[in-house]
């Protein structure tokens, strides 16, 4: 339970410091939390996982879970850095501590989602990962959009939880009274396929699909992303999504692995195609950068789920790598968006016209992020896409080749709209709207982390091999 305890420890420290300092003395909270969190991430990464299982097997810790948690931590850390400017503005500075506390609590919930081997613990994790986000989305109290987004988010979150719980109640009925993953899996492999189970599968898929904003459960995404404060949007689009994807993979392969080929494959197949294509088609027409990133993240979620289609160790490792690369690329883009929004208030794509004349470094960072998201070599996005495609085609089934073909064609569509941003920044001849300004120190740090990640994550194969070996070491896919 070490990672969870560390996060809870930081939470308590931040909470106490926040409570016992006066309103005008909260300046130190950002550096305190960031540094503590960075140390915690390093600690989680360095301390070897002890393969323990506690709470009677409800909670399991192993190398793969540890690697997943580290991926989430990277995202959360960059989000802290990106938020620092916004969180110090007059309207929200008084609630600065709350921001960090809420994020840490959601992270704690995500850790539980990854490590849970019992549906009760999983639901606890899921709820504590999603409910605080509603508060975060509503953080800009004085803004109408922020409230609207929070209401939309909370409604969908509760609704999807209800669907998920309905599905799980079917599973509970089927498994004869146990919610342990291993018991259910054993029951499924012993029994026959039943209509009840198919219902349960569909409900669970829908429940987690909402969190991942898979099509057709994506309708909340654009509005929430647009209305939420940009730093929260960034967090929502990568960390929250990443955790849901990991949980999805673990539940599918561990619990429903036995009926995978029969029922799951086709449901997921259709969902992935719809997600990638519809996300892309909607993204093409967006003029608001945050809505644009929302639809782009819908389609990226489809690519992430390709790893679940592979359903083997290589698939999981590729999925982890994809999410890590997606974290740095997407947060790189959001770092630029939030920096510009905090200074000028502009979030339209047309506002970026001629950005390279006034802020060349931001333009370069944004270009790299767009190229990486589109999967252009030598940037990391290329490698993560190719690795995930390679893992999917491993079974040599023609259906999966066709799935990859559709995904590949979609990368061309996505290239089109990512290039629209590049075009606005570099090619458009309009007079630049955004004036030249200096980015703050934390924003620069966030950008540098993202840019270095984008450039080197793919060229240096160490990270991917680390994922492969940690997945191999933890026997995640076998039933325990």
């Amino acid at each position: 339970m070490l990672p969870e305890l560390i996060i809870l420890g930081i939470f308590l420290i931040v909470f106490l410091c926040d409570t016992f300092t006066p309103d005008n003395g909260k300046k130190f909270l950002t550096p305190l939390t960031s540094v503590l969190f960075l140390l915690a991430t390093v600690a989680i990464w360095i301390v070897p996982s002890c393969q323990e299982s506690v709470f009677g097997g409800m909670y399991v810790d192993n190398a793969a879970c540890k690697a997943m948690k580290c991926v989430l931590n990277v995202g959360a850390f960059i989000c802290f850095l990106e938020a620092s400017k916004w969180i110090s503005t007059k309207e929200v500075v008084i609630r600065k501590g709350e921001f960090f506390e809420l994020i840490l609590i959601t992270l704690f919930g995500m850790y539980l989602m990854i490590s849970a081997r019992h549906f009760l613990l999983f639901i606890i994790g899921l709820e504590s990962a999603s409910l605080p986000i509603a508060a975060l989305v509503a953080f800009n109290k004085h803004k109408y959009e922020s409230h609207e987004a929070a209401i939309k988010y909370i409604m969908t979150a509760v609704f999807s939880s209800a669907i998920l719980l309905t599905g799980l109640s079917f599973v509970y009925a089927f498994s004869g009274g146990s919610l342990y993953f291993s018991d259910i899996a054993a029951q499924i492999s012993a029994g026959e396929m039943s209509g009840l189970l198919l219902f349960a599968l569909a409900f669970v898929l829908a429940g987690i699909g909402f969190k991942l904003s898979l099509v057709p459960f994506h309708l909340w995404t654009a509005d929430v992303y647009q209305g939420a404060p940009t730093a929260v949007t960034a967090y929502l689009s990568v960390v929250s999504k990443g955790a849901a994807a990991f949980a999805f993979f673990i539940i599918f392969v561990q619990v429903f692995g036995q009926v995978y080929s029969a029922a799951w494959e086709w449901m997921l197949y259709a969902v992935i195609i719809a997600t990638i294509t519809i996300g892309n088609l909607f993204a093409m027409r967006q003029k608001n950068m945050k809505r644009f990133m929302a639809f782009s993240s819908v389609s990226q979620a489809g690519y992430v789920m390709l790893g679940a289609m592979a359903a083997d160790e290589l698939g999981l490792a590729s999925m982890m790598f994809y999410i890590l690369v997606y974290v740095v690329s997407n947060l790189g883009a959001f770092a630029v968006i939030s920096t510009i929004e905090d200074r000028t208030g502009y979030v339209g794509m047309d506002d970026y016209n001629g950005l390279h004349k006034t802020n060349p470094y931001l333009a370069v960072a944004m270009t790299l992020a767009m190229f990486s998201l589109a999967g252009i070599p030598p940037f990391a996005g290329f490698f993560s896409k190719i690795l995930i495609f390679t893992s999917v085609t491993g079974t040599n089934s023609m259906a999966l080749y066709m799935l990859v073909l559709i995904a590949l064609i979609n990368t061309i569509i996505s290239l089109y709209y990512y290039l629209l941003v590049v075009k606005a920044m570099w090619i458009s001849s309009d007079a630049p709207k955004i004036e030249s300004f200096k980015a703050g120190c934390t924003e620069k740090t966030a950008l540098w982390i993202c840019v270095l990640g984008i450039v080197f994550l793919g060229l240096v194969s160490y990270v991917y091999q680390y994922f492969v070996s940690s997945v191999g070491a933890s026997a995640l896919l076998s039933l325990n």
Partner: protein
Amino acid sequence: MFGNILIWFVIIPVLMMAGLGVCRNSSMAAIRAVMVIGSTILLALAIWLCVDFLALRGAGVDDEMLFTGSWMWYAPLNIHLAVGVDGISVLMLLLSAVIVFAGTFASWKINPLPKNFFLWFALLSTGVFGFFISIDMFTMFMFYEVALIPMYLLIGVWGTGRKEYSAMKLTLMLMGGSAFLMLGLLGIYWHSAPAGGELTWNILEIARNNAVDPSWQNLLFCFTFVGFGVLGAMFPFHTWSPDGHACAPTAVSMLHAGVLMKLGGYGCFRIAIYLLPAAANELAWIFIILTGISVVYGAFSACVQTDLKYINAYSSVSHCGMVLFALLMLNQTAMTGAILQMLSHGLMTALFFALIGMIYGRTHTRDIREMGGLMQIMPYLGVCYMIAGFASLGLPGLSGFVAEMTIFFGAWEDADMFHRAFVVAATCSIVITAVYILRVVGKLLLGKVHDEHHLQLTDATWFERFSTVTLIVCIAGIGFFPNWINETIQHSFLPIIHALQNAI
């Protein structure tokens, strides 16, 4: 790793990019210095490699690939950074180095943002060189895409005319081709070894294993050939080429038509035909039809264009179609011709685009109806244009003649009606080429001066002369001494011909 000469073809452009990175946009001298030094070293390296290669072959080393090296990259998927060259890649590296060198001088006065222009230019050359040295499909594909994407910004920012449209069209079509290509490569990888063997991305090992299931070969051949064929301007996927070339800045047109389109032909040869020989034997006829259409249709289209760049873009479609056409004849003579044609077309089209850039820079029009009698005003450029034109229509003594003769001799070896009919059709393209070349020469260079203002124009400057002379020397060199090229490449066809015959 750094002891391998081939790796330096990638490292030097990267160092050039690093050097450019510390320059400022305003310090033109420093930028030019970096580019000139870098491209000179690359040219010297390519010539050295060529000499070294010939010496080794002369000493009786008859490995399929020389200077090989292989370093593990992504161990779980057995992806290596594997390099190696045979005669064809050596010549392609030489061609690329010559054109990068000439392109640097052709964009001497690029404006605005010279630093960014040369950064992308250097990235493009990294991709091109990396592609030709790779023998691992993964790295090859990576470098292929690295070479494609800078085109978007190079055309979009520094181009002329409808540049935004053309840049987007070109990028999306070429990347669309590479999507199909990627799927083909994945299929080859997962079938690269017999059951139980270790899967590999290495081209030589895949060819040796020859384990791609016949039932998969046809599908994978279509994917890979179409994927590379898009870049080789194969009908009906050639439409990016005229728009893209017409809007691109001079050096980019040179590099793109001169080298990048060869990536398509080289890839078809090295991956589609070599690794999937059974499918190549079976399906060649489909692509012979398509490339045959490219050859004739491209030439006819060039006849009716009035924009100089469009004329040469369509002529490139025709000539590059000829490369693929010759490769699909699947015999050694025709393939030798295809390689010669790649070199010849690369040099002469680069010369064409350089000259068009220079003429456009003076007259500010590319429409041949608005120009005339340029020979009187700028005799140097006029003569160069004529030389390029004669090379294009196949005048003996220049490179075009050698290439096309070899292709038609080789193509005639297939004695059935289908092949012969297409060879006859393709041969007609030479006549059509003569029509459009002479039409341009007559209207543009000879005759009366069309516009009084043109009388004040000056002839070529020293860097322009330098750039063009380099290319003309190479064109004449191939024309007069084709034999050393033949000697350089003849070894390279043995494995592929062997594979094709085994697969029948």
